């Protein structure tokens, strides 16, 4: 395939293949961090992304993976630009993304729990009889929980 035949829609399809390194079931499209893809004349392409949390170390890796992808597609001129506004919220995460998260064992962001507190649905047994262990989990975007019913610990992807 030559570069010329690649359109915006095709780029999105390739972006779907790039996963969040911390949560490898989620693509960056599921996560909602791709804001726009702009094709310029002269086969130049720019991908706009936004970070979930400011300090998220995965962002550099995601940006690098996008650049590698564009380069391997044959683009000579490409750019990945981080934008801040409008700030990412969990609303940007797709329904498909939320389903995949749960399947992976991470409770998906739930609007009823804007701030992490007891009662988030357990992704293993669906019980709401759960306890917040810590507002801060294994990565910046997650909180730690334990389920009183199935006794399993789990992560909650914090609402943002």
């Amino acid at each position, binding site marked *: 395939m030559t570069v010329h035949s690649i359109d915006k829609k095709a780029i999105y399809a390739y972006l779907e293949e790039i996963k969040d390194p911390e949560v490898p079931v989620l693509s960056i499209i599921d996560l909602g961090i791709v804001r726009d893809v702009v094709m310029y004349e002269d086969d130049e392409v720019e991908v706009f992304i936004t970070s979930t949390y400011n300090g998220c170390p995965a962002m550099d890796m995601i940006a690098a993976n996008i650049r590698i992808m564009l380069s391997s597609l044959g683009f000579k001129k490409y750019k990945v630009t981080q934008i801040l506004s409008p700030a990412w919220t969990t609303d940007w995460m797709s329904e498909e993304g939320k389903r995949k998260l749960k399947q992976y064992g991470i409770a998906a962001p739930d609007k009823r729990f804007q701030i992490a507190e007891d009662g988030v649905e357990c992704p293993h047994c669906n019980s709401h009889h759960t306890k917040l262990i*810590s*507002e801060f989990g294994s990565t910046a975007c997650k909180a730690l929980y334990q389920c009183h019913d199935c006794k399993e610990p789990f992560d909650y992807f914090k609402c943002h």
Partner: protein
Amino acid sequence: METTFKNQNSEVPPLEGFRQAYLLHLADTTLILSHRNSEWCGHGPVLEQDIALTNISLDLLGQARLFYQYAAELINNSKKAEGKVSPLGGDLEGADEDKLAYLRTEREYKNLLLVEQPNGDWGQTILRQYLYSQFQQLVFQQLQNHKDEQIAAIATKSLKETNYHVRWSSEWVIRLGDGTDESKQRMLYAIDELWRYTGEMFIPADYESVAQVDFNTVQQQWIAKVKTVFEEAGLPVPEKIFMQTGGKNGMHTEHIGYILSDLQYMQRAYPNSQW
């Protein structure tokens, strides 16, 4: 009204302008607090709290990077516009976030004195975090409406994290103040150690005229919030006491030198090294 110190260091960039200086103040404050908190990594009282504090550290580092990046952009633009050499000393080809963090001296750092204070015990670290996060939350709420869209965007994004920091640290202040005799004693000691550095937050430096923040309102809101938390914790809010100032203008406590020698060691010893 206290007078603010003009920066004594002649190396201080004459070009940086107020907006750049304010961005550096915000960047330095979040970076230094991040660095202090990171000193706890692997030493927290229990695993969850160790993780919590290092998470907060990471959030603050992320915020610092955004402020440094934007400050660097403005510094480079003004440098280009005026055709002047880099204000940052040495043979710097343009400012970037790393140069701003790693190659400025303590007199050029504009962070609040509060955040450079040593970790002390867990209580002192918690109180430092709470006093700052509560302030940061109120200031960033105002910065969200800043005319400079980039500043507004960084504030809006950071605030989501700061809200968690306020909640976590205030809960710990209450738990320790209202805990055992020992924990209460330690919190009283922490207040003695740290309160004197809080006054500075509300005395704007000359460059803070660009902040578009009403520091009087922030001060009233801050004291009201702190009173509520301290009351629940059974801790006294100190009466008017002497307040140490100067950090915003590069006049620091001795601690900053030790922090920077740690933070900047690699870049100073092996210039331009990367990994």
